[in-house]
Every structure is written in structure tokens, then in C-alpha cells.
């Protein structure tokens, strides 16, 4: 390219650069749009296949592996059985098992936000989003049936009722780290209230109440309703700082 001196030359070069950039951006945008379109086709086709040819896919181990890989790569859930007549009537077939796996997965995925406690409404909503392809809404009853199938695996997964709402708890008491946080919080004053826990730890009221109730059952907490503000206080006599005062007194 011949180099052109002067301001005109510089301006020209800048204009050309701009043009190239514009074109490049357009192409890039077009490319992503096309990609998304193709991805959408790919996914819907895979979903269809997963549903229609389930048994054939399962018969051929080598193909099954490839099929799973495809599903995983483009983000298609291969579990997409329809409820069907027999599942509805007798609870047999894969439907409730698949739903069970998906329910646990939702619980696992949301655990960082809610500490393993999710309301049944939210659960149904999230499941619905996941099962967009299968045009069939998941009712609360379906969820409850699917959860009841998991009973064999111990009592670590249960539906509890707090107030009027139904909550699903996926973390058993033995593995619940929420309790540690409450204990830590209680160290300052020796007691906490539901409000305080909610505010300080940014939890939902269900989560706070459930955790405190469990600690009460475990014998780690004591309740005090007699305070002037009318709020129930949960005392933790076992928390170190308080008991060490007591210890110092007696010695």
C-alpha cells in the first residue's frame, strides 16, 4: 500500500479501519445469531430423539455414550419421559424416577442460596423451566410422589411444613452447616432471635425458623418468651464465651 502523507492520509486510514471494524462486528454478530439458531435446532432435535427413541438408544452402548455426550455438550436434559397413563395411575415407569433425580438436582443447584431448604412452589417452577421441552406441567403432587420414591435412601430428604407453606429440605441435620453459623452469631450475646438471624445472615424466614427449631430439638438451644419486646429468644447456653463466664464464677 502506498503511504499517503498528511492529515488526509491519516483520516483515510482511520476511516478504513472503522469500516473494517464495523464489518467485523457485523460478521461476528451474524455468526453468533446463526450459531444460536443452529444450536436451538440441535437441541430440539436431540430432545425429540431422547423422548422418541429412548429404548433404542439404550440398547446400543457405544451410541448411548455418544448421545449422552451430545446432550451434555449442548445442554439438553436426556431425562424427558412423559408421565403417561401408567405412571399416573400406578406410579410405575421412569417418570417419577427421572423427576426425582431432577428434583434433587434443583435442590443441589440452589443449595448455595437457600441452604438446602426450598419451597415446593419454587421447586415446581424451576422444574418447569428445566422441562420446557416436555410440554407438561409438573404439579406439586407429582413432586411429592417423586420424593416419596426416594424414601429408601434414608431420611435425608424430606418435606416439612412451616406455617402454611410446604418446604423441601435436602440437607440432613447431621450435615447442616447452617447451625454452625447460628452458633457463631449467638456467640456475641448468647442468644438470637428469628429476626436477627434473618437479617444478619440474609436468610429466608423458613430457613431461619427451621434451623432454630432443629437446634431446639437437638437440645442445643433454649427458648425464652418472657422478654419485653415479645420476640422469642433462642439462648445457647453451650456457646463457649457465655459458659466460660459461668465457669469462672463457679471456680
Amino acid at each position: 500500500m502506498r503511504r499517503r502523507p498528511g492529515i488526509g492520509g491519516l483520516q483515510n486510514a482511520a476511516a478504513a479501519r472503522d469500516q473494517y471494524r464495523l464489518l467485523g462486528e457485523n460478521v461476528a454478530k451474524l455468526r453468533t445469531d446463526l450459531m444460536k439458531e443452529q444450536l436451538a435446532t440441535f437441541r430440539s432435535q436431540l430432545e425429540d430423539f431422547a423422548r422418541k427413541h429412548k429404548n433404542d438408544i439404550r440398547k446400543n452402548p457405544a451410541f448411548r455414550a455418544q448421545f449422552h455426550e451430545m446432550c451434555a455438550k449442548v445442554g439438553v436434559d436426556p431425562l424427558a419421559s412423559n408421565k403417561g397413563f401408567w405412571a399416573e395411575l400406578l406410579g410405575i415407569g421412569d417418570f417419577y424416577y427421572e423427576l426425582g433425580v431432577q428434583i434433587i438436582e434443583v435442590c443441589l443447584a440452589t443449595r448455595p442460596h437457600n441452604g438446602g431448604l426450598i419451597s415446593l412452589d419454587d421447586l415446581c417452577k424451576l422444574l418447569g423451566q428445566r422441562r420446557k421441552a416436555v410440554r407438561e406441567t409438573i404439579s406439586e403432587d407429582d413432586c411429592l410422589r417423586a420424593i416419596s420414591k426416594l424414601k429408601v435412601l434414608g431420611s435425608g430428604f424430606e418435606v416439612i411444613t412451616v406455617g402454611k407453606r410446604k418446604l423441601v429440605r435436602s440437607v440432613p441435620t447431621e450435615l447442616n452447616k447452617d447451625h454452625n453459623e447460628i452458633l457463631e452469631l449467638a456467640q456475641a450475646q448468647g442468644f438470637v432471635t428469628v429476626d436477627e438471624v434473618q437479617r444478619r445472615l440474609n436468610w429466608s424466614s423458613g430457613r431461619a425458623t427451621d434451623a432454630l427449631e432443629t437446634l431446639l430439638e437437638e437440645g442445643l438451644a433454649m427458648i425464652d418468651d418472657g422478654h419485653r419486646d415479645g420476640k422469642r429468644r433462642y439462648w445457647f447456653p453451650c456457646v463457649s464465651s457465655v459458659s466460660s463466664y459461668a465457669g469462672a464464677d463457679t471456680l
Partner: protein
Amino acid sequence: MAGNWLPSAQLTGSGRPVLQPGEVECSLLSSVDLFSEETPSFPNLKAGVVILTTHRLIWVQESTTSPTAIFIPLSAVTHIFSLKRSIKSMFASPRFRFQASLGEKGTKGVVVITLILRGKSDIDSFVEKFWEAWRKKAWEDGKKSGQEASGSGLGSGHGSGVDGGLAVRMPVVGVAGILRKEQEIWENTDKSLQEAFQDLNALMNKAKEMVTLAERMRAKLLSGSTSQATGTNDEENGTKEEMQELLLSVGIVSPVTKESAGALYHQQLSRQLADFAKIPLERAGGMINLIDIYCLFNRARGTELISPDDLLRACSLWEKFDVPVMLRTFDSGVMVIQSKSHSDFEVFTRIRSMVTTPDALRAGVTASDAAMTLGIAPAMAKEHLLAAEGKGLLCRDVSPDGFRFFVNLLQEVDADDIFLVKDYGIYQTWVKVISDAR
């Protein structure tokens, strides 16, 4: 074991074969003998588990404490003899023969190998699967795609190799050339997508290509949406999240199924589960809810769901094998999977060191102290403390302060001379701490 006739196969910690990339398990048989009638020097292998994969025939000796395994690559198989049908064969255990040239590039010569199936297994379907795997030559695919991947490492956009040919040879000059190339790539992708999804057979034939396509789309979409974060809307973020989430849950290429493993189903499932559980366990700190594992394991298996009952059975079989994990049931009915390295013994050691600190010697520890020190939930900590008490490691003290545990000094006292105050050990430390406090 097999002399130098057959190479040995790698096994996982729980005695399942380590599969090569692209290798998939097809069938399993129990109590199979493997020997050669014509070649006496060939090892006589008795009563092992035979695993047929798309690449190899693996023979695993499970009766010994640490399982060992050898394999015959299917690529070495030169001929498969058809099953002999006679009156005699109806009463004897079914046997099945094939010819293979063994050693590096057939240096050991051609050997006719006989398999005797002593278990109650269906020989016909096994032979059929053997034929199928041998004919498909999946091991060649693996090599080819490996070369392809290294060859077109730069991956200029045409991944499927087949469609690239013409497009590359066209002179790619200037902006127009680049644009044309782009377009061709898209047209090709569209076409192959359409072809592949005509019916199931078409998809099977094009499976490999589709997998690479999926891979490419994923890579581009993930990198694309991070670089241009400004233009993303909710839906896009949704897809991205979905994709990343599911990535966590892929894993088992070759799930053990009732169809492939037959009578060995629960046993093999149990071993596979033990191998699988290791990583989530580590992430969860040595203990994980059985329900969580149920979900993760099933997710990793894709469409091959197992029922909760099967999972429980697989877990209960662990006692019989030498695996690094165990099932544990709490009094509350909660079931968890625990790694053995995280077992009671290790916890007791930590509890012991916790209760022998000067503070704890004076004031004892509570479940919540233990929870904080050990980094576990209070309910769990209480469980551990009670277990330690049961072992005689701790003593309890119930007072208005609550439930407190102290180190069990009674163990230190000499039964023959109970008034002797030793000037060493924990007893001595305790005496010192208490007298200091006063």
C-alpha cells in the same frame, strides 16, 4: 500371571477396568476360563470376569484380594469361530473360540483362545456382541480422531473434516473470501444437522460428527458470551448457565447396566459407584448425603437411571470389596457415604487432640465447640462425641451449662496403684492445668 502372552490391564481402586477414551463397555460375564487348547504354554486362566468393550476383551481375576487383569485387544483378533452345536455341548459348559495374533505386531504368533463360560450366562448374545464390536472396529476411530485432532489443532472452524475439503481449497482472499468461507461453513453445518436428524440410524452413523459439532458450538458460545457481555439478555444467560451446570454432571461414559452386566449387575454397579463417589466425596469433605450421590450418579449415567433400591444394594455390597468408601446410617435414619480415610479412627484422633488442650482439660468441650473445631455440623459433632464416649475416650458432664465432655482420665489410672499420681502423660498435664487455674 499371564506370562508375557497378554498385556495387563489397568484397574481402578475398586477393581473395575480403566477404559481408554472412546471405549465403551458392551457385556460382562462371570466365572469364565480362558486358555488355549493348541498352545500349552499359553496361561490357563480360571474363573474370572470377562468384560467385553468396544476395544478390548478384558479378563479380571477377582478372587484374589487385589484384583489383576489382562486384556486382548480386539484389533488382534483375526478370526471368530462359530459356536459348535452338538448333543455333547448341551451338557458341558458352553465354550467359544477365537483366533488372535498376540504380542507386538503379532510377534508371539497366532493363538486359538478358548473361553469357557461356567456361569449361567447367555453365550449366544455374548458371541453376537463380540462379533458386533469386532466388526465395528471402534479402536480405529479412536486413533483416527486422535490424529485429526492433532492435525487440525488450530481448528479454523470446519470441525467435521468431511465437509471442509472444498471450502479450504477455494482461494481465500480478502474480506470477501473470509465471508464466503464463513457462509460455507454455516451451510455445511446446517446440512449435516438436517441429515443427521432424519432418523435414528442416520444419527447413529453421524454420531461422531455431531459430537464434534456439539463440542464446537459449546466452545464458541461459552467463549462468545463472556467476551461480549454487554449484549447478553436473560435468555442467553439462561442457556449459558444451563450448559455450564450440566457440564458438572457428565462423567460415566460406560455405565454398568442390567443388560450389559446381567447377573453381575449389582456387583459391578457397586464398584463403579465406589469409583465415582470419590470425587464428590472429596469436594464435600469426606461425607455426603446418599440422596445427593443418587442424583449425581444418575446424572453421570445419562439415560441409564438406576432406582433408589439398586443404589442401596450397590452400597451395601461395599462391605465385601476392598473399596475406600463406606455407607453409614445415623440413628436419625439419615444415610451418608463416608470415605474410609475420614473414618471414626481419624475423627477420634482429632477429638483426642482437641480435648487435651489446656482449656478443654479445664472446662471440657460441647458439641458446638467440636462442631467449630472439626468444621462439621453440630448434630454430627454430637454424634462423634457420643461415639468417642462409647469408646471410653471421653467422659460426660451434665450440668446447667449443658452437655460437656472431658477427656477420660480414668484410663490413665493404674489399677494396681490407684493413688499414684503419675508425673507424665495427660494426667500430669491435667493436674497442672487445674492447679494453675485455681
